[in-house]
């Protein structure tokens, strides 16, 4: 006793897609008693359902919300994901896997890739992926969860590939159980406080009104509150990331094909094409730039190239790359597409929504009003996340020798942001990666893309040439052999999924 009465913050979430239900369930689960959550969605408005492929961070979200992994995977028809196989990006005919894991180990404080570069120069090394357990397991279509020790079996992580149209509903069921109130309806008007401009209520088409203290805009690209109502400026990044459409087409699995524990991204003349294996079907899509390809042609391309038998006609998603200058303005927080969009090349959409929710929970207003300092802090963190991802995505397009289409000529020759140009120059001249510990994509990821796209540095560290080459070769051979053995001991990806499903059924 003696604690003052806490008046819960009335949170209203607008939009019932992935971002909407992730936000609603997250707040309900992690701020019990501090917030009431109402969510308004309409069956008349389709959801984009982006993010069939995810990053390992999603596991943290699932775990924090106390969701059983196996049940979650069953409900969303999920498969495991060890990385992304990029094909034809650096040049036609080349490919590499960007793994959720590392390549080798540092020796005497010097990064593994310097030794690898030295050995590769002498023609004594295999592809760098040979020295990554995640890559080797992916290529063998095998999977087992990593260990939490310091052994080789701990050198990778994993994420999920799931049916994004099922993820939202799964989170909805979870959210409703946690006490989120769902409202079916269309928002027809927004009420604002005349003095401070804050949103005070959403009015629905049937005359209901939803009053709130805090509004989370998950209305997708419409950005109904943050963009339309508050007119928060949009920072356009399409000069660097020109893709603005996706032609999407689900397909059946081809009979007898292995179930890949990774996503495939194949470069195309005006963008790239994804193949995401789910338990029950394949996700296919062609992300392209409408400046270089029209929608009909893109649909024809996806029909011609898709993996598996079509389950529906291709449909077109339209988007634009960039972000709102502020994701949190007044008492409105944009989560997901309403606050910004970066194309799905590295499966970052759900990650960015998740980080916004995490930061919002950390900075949640509990003592009456919103403090401008918390809002600034939220926007600082969200900006940092977007900037890091943006530069990394641009790298995939810019580090190329492709000159076979107008699109690739454009991205190859465009001027990139200074922050990226500096990173690329440092790599090119010295084989070093600019380091940071906050945000997304660390050394191993940058090295995977640089080397995978043939962006071999001009020099590497002099220390890599100190040991006799045979000695480095023996060490690398031993590592490759250990990886091969470890992979052979892993179950097949599909088998592992089936055994997990059987275990779940037994437990139930």
């Amino acid at each position, binding site marked *: 006793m003696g604690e003052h009465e806490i008046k819960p913050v009335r949170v209203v979430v607008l939009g019932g897609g992935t971002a909407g239900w992730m936000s609603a369930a997250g707040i309900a689960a992690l701020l019990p008693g*501090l917030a009431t959550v109402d969510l308004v969605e309409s069956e008349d408005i389709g959801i984009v359902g982006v993010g069939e492929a995810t990053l390992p961070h999603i596991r943290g979200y699932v775990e924090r919300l106390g969701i059983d992994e196996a049940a979650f995977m069953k409900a969303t028809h999920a498969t495991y994901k060890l990385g992304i196989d990029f094909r034809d990006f650096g040049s036609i005919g080349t490919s590499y896997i960007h793994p959720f894991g590392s390549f080798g180990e540092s020796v005497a*404080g010097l990064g593994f890739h310097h030794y690898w570069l030295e050995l590769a*120069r002498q023609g004594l090394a295999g592809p760098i992926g040979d020295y990554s357990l995640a890559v080797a397991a992916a290529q063998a279509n095998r999977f087992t969860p990593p260990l939490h020790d310091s052994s080789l079996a701990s050198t990778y992580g994993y994420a999920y590939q799931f049916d994004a149209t099922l993820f939202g509903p799964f989170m909805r069921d979870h959210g409703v159980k946690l006490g989120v109130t769902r409202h079916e309806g269309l928002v027809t008007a927004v009420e604002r406080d005349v003095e401070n401009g804050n949103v005070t209520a959403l009015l629905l088409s049937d005359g209901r009104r939803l009053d709130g203290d805090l509004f989370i805009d998950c209305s997708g690209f419409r950005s109904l509150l943050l963009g339309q109502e508050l007119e928060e400026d949009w920072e356009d990044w399409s000069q660097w990331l020109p893709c603005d459409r996706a032609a999407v087409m689900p397909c059946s699995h081809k009979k007898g094909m292995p179930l890949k524990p990774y996503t495939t991204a194949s470069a195309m003349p005006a963008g790239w094409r994804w193949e995401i294996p789910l338990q029950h079907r394949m996700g296919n899509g062609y992300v392209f730039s409408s400046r270089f390809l029209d929608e009909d042609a893109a649909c024809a391309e996806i029909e011609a190239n898709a993996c598996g038998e079509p389950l529906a006609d291709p449909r077109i998603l339209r988007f634009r790359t960039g972000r709102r200058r502020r994701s949190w303005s007044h008492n409105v927080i944009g989560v997901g597409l309403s606050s910004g969009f970066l194309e799905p090349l590295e499966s970052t959409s759900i990650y960015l929504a998740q980080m916004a929710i995490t930061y919002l929970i950390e900075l949640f207003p509990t003592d009456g009003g919103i403090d401008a300092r918390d809002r600034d802090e939220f926007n600082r963190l969200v900006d940092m996340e977007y900037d890091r991802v943006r530069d990394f995505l641009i790298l995939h397009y810019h580090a190329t020798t492709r000159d076979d289409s107008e699109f690739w000529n454009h991205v190859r020759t465009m001027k990139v942001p200074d922050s990226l140009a500096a990173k690329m120059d*440092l790599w090119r001249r*010295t084989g*070093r990666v*600019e380091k940071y510990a906050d945000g997304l994509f660390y050394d191993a990821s940058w090295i995977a893309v640089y080397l995978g796209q043939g962006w071999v540095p001009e*020099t*590497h560290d002099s220390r890599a040439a100190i040991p006799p080459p045979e000695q480095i070769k023996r060490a690398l051979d031993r590592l490759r052999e250990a990886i091969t053995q470890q992979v052979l001991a892993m179950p097949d990806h599909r088998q592992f999924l089936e055994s997990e499903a059987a275990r779940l059924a037994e437990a139930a």
Partner: protein
Amino acid sequence: MTEPREALRRIVIAGAGQLGVLAAIALKRALPSAEVVVLGIPIDPGALADRAATALPFTNRLHDRLGIDELALVAKAGASHRLITRYVGWGGPGQQAAVPYSTGTEPAMASRFAREWGGGRQGASMVASPTSPAQALAEAGRFAVIPPGEAGPLAEIDYALRWNPQAYRDLLIAIAQQLGVSYLPGNLLGVEPDGHGGIASVSLTGTEPIAADLFVDCSGPSAALLSTLPDFETLDWSNNLPVRKLILSRPGRPLVALEDRVTLLPEGWRYELAGRDGLQVTLGIAPGAAEEVALRALGAPPLIAFDLEPGRCIDPWIGNVLALGDASARFEPVAALNLDLAHRQLDLLIEMLPGRRIEPLERIEYNRRASLMMDAVRDTLALHYIAPAAAVQFGPIALSDDVERLRDQYERRGRTIFREEAPFSNSVMTNLLIALGFCPGVPPQEKTQNTQAAVSALNAKVQSALAFAPQYTSWLEGVLANLARA
């Protein structure tokens, strides 16, 4: 195709203090083919990284990688272990709290304990918050170093070392000699520019000019090499850090303790460093405090006093000259960060070791990260002077946006902020904030586990650590006896 860079052939290190010699060891180990020369030019007595008789846990890991055996430091350099630093009076009269390097609980829970059981301004009149295993061990005088990789209740306890700087330096010199590092004593007569913003050669009394590919300036606050370069520029921290004068005591009685102590006094702060060679006291004098009064506050016979001009180089690496330690940043030893920063910079140099032809871009990247390190140190120190009780004697100081944000977020929300290249993890930073008397605000998301469960878990850790650990003094005697027999 990629080529290995041509390796540095000769590296000259200016300054043969404990920092310069360790830098020589690290560089020689990284590049055995290079000639590494240490110039024994006189070092300013105010070179705090060279005077430091202690560092932080990072240094233990650096030693480990460089093959410097901790037990050898115990045997030959008077090394002893510190588990906690006790801050006394920073939150107000009677308030005190320990800063361990490992807490046994999450930062959010530590803040919650502080809020609910004391710490902060009300601390004195409240029940002390639950104790971390490190603090319980320090208070019971129990500890033993566990061999790496071994499990058990002491495995999670991180610690810092103290030593006798002279003996430590001698031990390093012996290792450096074994590795083939050469040494040239003398006074610096002059430097010959290389025409590209760096140095071609340096001249000492009694020697030919000494050319090198890379010069590492470990000469102390004067930055004897770096400061000769046309692009040398400094950043003044005197608005951020108020202490201008330091007094160091002569060593007192030997004191084998697992804790050190930093006390806030009307005259400034007093840092008491225990050690097998004797307790050493350092006093940082508050602006306006009279020196005679301050001398009394020292509580021990003074050894030396010197002036402090806090600041840093804007670029610690210019041309082919790179400054470490006091040559790159000067600040007070209130948090044992002087040698810690120098060692982290040295580690960064080893990570980014250039080739014979230095790339401007790698210099830029080094300077970026080294600057983040230095500014994070400045801001960690600044927190001391805005602690609730300290602001009175130290007066207002200029705060960086990062400090303002951290203080605000911590006091309103109990939230610490991740910072690139910071000296402390969020967990240690949380403990420091509590010890300095900042009152943590309530984070919106209190841990779902209840406090009682966390307290029980912590108490269980404390009990098993206490039951397992021998008396530190007996353990130390045993180690010394074993070493003597060997």
